[in-house]
């Protein structure tokens, strides 16, 4: 069992809300963040909709680098800084950020003829995290995690590891990704995007839609955490499928191992889990595999507790998704409400758990399990403990 780490506060920018309060209100109220994409051309794609953030809040100070990824991270960091003090010696403040795409939009610009040397440096996937560290004045460890769409969970796990190892006293950790032509073209080519709405666990589900966003949490060793923290990260595990480059293991063995290892690190028994935030992409493959994994890991408890997916309203925000979902778990405990799974109307018999369809539900989950997966056979699980307000 690992030493728990305090989640002191959170900050976000998402398609359904430009700060934490708006995000939570949007989740509970069933806000729709999916709309036609306007920031770049999509007319040649089969699907041109996604969770695009239409208006970013202005940054609190000058951004240290160009690019939308940095702007998203700065917006989330500003929101976080309004909610918690980052007052620590700069060399003791770490930054761990997950992303599936890094600064790929800057690579598109560099290849399109922008010859500024800086553009090439900005195109490196590690650049936005370094820019965030400069924005925050952090001089501790700076890590960029890229376990595809599980990045936002792996980043929190590595950040906790840095704290436990004494490498930092505070770590700003989370994930981000931007919507850009590169990723829209890629998922469009894979025919992974739906022309319908995203319908996690629904019989009619036909694929995902992408979204963009950034989500950051401030982590500290539990003993050093101020009063009023959002909750605690009790356990984390990231595992590899070792089966296929893009498709999940049909048996879900990697995801199962991640969930079991995270529960073991947390010292939490399946019977003590109150809520599951599922990866729930709304794809034909993911949802029944994930359902089967939850039944194996949690046993009878899987049928007794709420399970949700928030990707119906946000889209799949890739590197940001797992951190947003972890924050959602803690806010559910704080406010005593579990947000609904938007888009779920006709349950799939192969997905037979309680997915909170329709509307938000009064519940106060203390211990949550959050699961994530991504390209390259990446799996991750987090176990979180929330605090009632």
């Amino acid at each position, binding site marked *: 069992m690992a030493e728990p780490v305090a989640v002191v506060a959170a900050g976000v920018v998402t398609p359904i809300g430009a700060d934490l309060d708006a995000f939570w209100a949007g989740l509970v109220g069933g806000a729709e963040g999916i709309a036609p994409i306007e920031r770049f051309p999509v007319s040649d794609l089969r699907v041109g909709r996604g969770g695009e953030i239409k208006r970013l809040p202005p940054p609190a100070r000058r951004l240290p680098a160009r690019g939308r990824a940095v702007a998203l991270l700065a917006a989330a960091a500003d929101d976080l800084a309004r909610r918690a003090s980052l007052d620590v010696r700069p060399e003791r403040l770490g930054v761990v950020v997950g992303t599936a795409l890094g600064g790929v939009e800057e*690579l598109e610009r560099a290849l399109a003829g922008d*010859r500024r040397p800086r553009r090439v440096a900005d195109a490196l*996937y590690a650049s936005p995290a370094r820019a965030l560290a400069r924005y925050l004045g952090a001089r501790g460890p700076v890590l960029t995690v890229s376990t595809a769409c599980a990045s936002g969970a792996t980043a929190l796990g590595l950040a906790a590891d840095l704290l436990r190892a004494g490498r930092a006293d505070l770590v700003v950790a989370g994930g981000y990704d931007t919507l850009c032509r590169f990723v829209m073209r890629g998922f469009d*080519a894979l025919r992974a995007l739906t022309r319908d709405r995203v319908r996690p666990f629904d019989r009619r589900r036909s694929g995902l839609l992408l979204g963009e966003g950034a989500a950051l949490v401030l982590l500290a060793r539990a003993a050093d955490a101020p009063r009023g923290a959002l909750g605690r990260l009790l356990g984390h*595990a990231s595992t*590899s499928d070792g089966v*296929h480059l893009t498709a999940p293991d049909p048996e879900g063995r990697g995801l199962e191992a991640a969930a079991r290892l995270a529960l073991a690190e947390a010292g939490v028994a399946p019977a003590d889990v109150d809520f599951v935030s599922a990866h729930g992409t709304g794809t034909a493959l993911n949802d029944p595999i994930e359902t089967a994994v939850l039944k194996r890991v949690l046993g009878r408890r899987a049928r007794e507790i709420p399970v949700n997916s928030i990707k119906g309203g946000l889209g799949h925000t890739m590197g940001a998704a797992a951190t947003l979902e972890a924050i959602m778990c803690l806010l559910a405990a704080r406010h005593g409400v579990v947000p609904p799974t938007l888009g779920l109307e006709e349950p799939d018999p192969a997905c037979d758990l309680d997915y909170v369809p329709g509307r938000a539900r009064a519940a106060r989950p203390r211990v949550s399990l959050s699961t994530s997966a991504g390209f390259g*056979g990446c799996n991750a699980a987090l176990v979180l403990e929330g605090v009632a307000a």
Partner: protein
Amino acid sequence: MRAARLAAVGLLTGWGAGPGALPPDARRAAGTRAVIALEAPQVGGERFRRATRECRLAVAAVEAMLRDGGLAPGALAGGRTALLYVTAAAYGAANRVFVEGPPGGALHFPYTAPSAVPAEVAIEFGLTGPYVILVGGAEATREALGHAARLLAAGVAERALVLAVETFAECADLWARARWRCPRPLVEAAACALLGSAGARLPGPAALARLEAGARRRAGETLACAPLVALALAAPARRAAPARRAAPAGR
């Protein structure tokens, strides 16, 4: 708590296979060449038909490591081996092909993710244990080595494969634009180290940083591979890792 030990290393660079192929002074050996490239090695047959050069290099480096350690191909398989992959730039070539390529590209798009490289390694060698992918240079690899040691100490894994790959040739023009930030020569490399409970003692962070300075002098700039090049240079010689599959491209 037992300290992590270095069980085996695998090293392929633009100079050749193994630490013995490194020149005494990379800058002098490179002459006017900005990039010292590696050809795509022949690995695995049909499954690697579409795999990118960086994926093949990763698999070839692990094969070299298994030979170095006298280990069977199945030695890494299962959930008790952690896989930690680091790169600063080995996704650049795949991303460029996708950006500049024709519409579509469904078969290539999955290879644009940094996770494609360790995924191919995990599939090839059956690794299903703890999994971390970091993007960054030598500093990120030092973090990966530290994290691997902590996974072993915590008993989460029995072995940890720390792998790094860097390729530059396909984006040499972009690197040239940023040459004021980038030491020369850039040397392509695929390197890995297997940590476990047996083998040579792993140097601490300060000692590793010192070893890296020497490794850079000999190998050139290998970004994320640098700490692993240093470990390969410091590791006691066991058996020669024959340059069976990877060869320098001679650019």
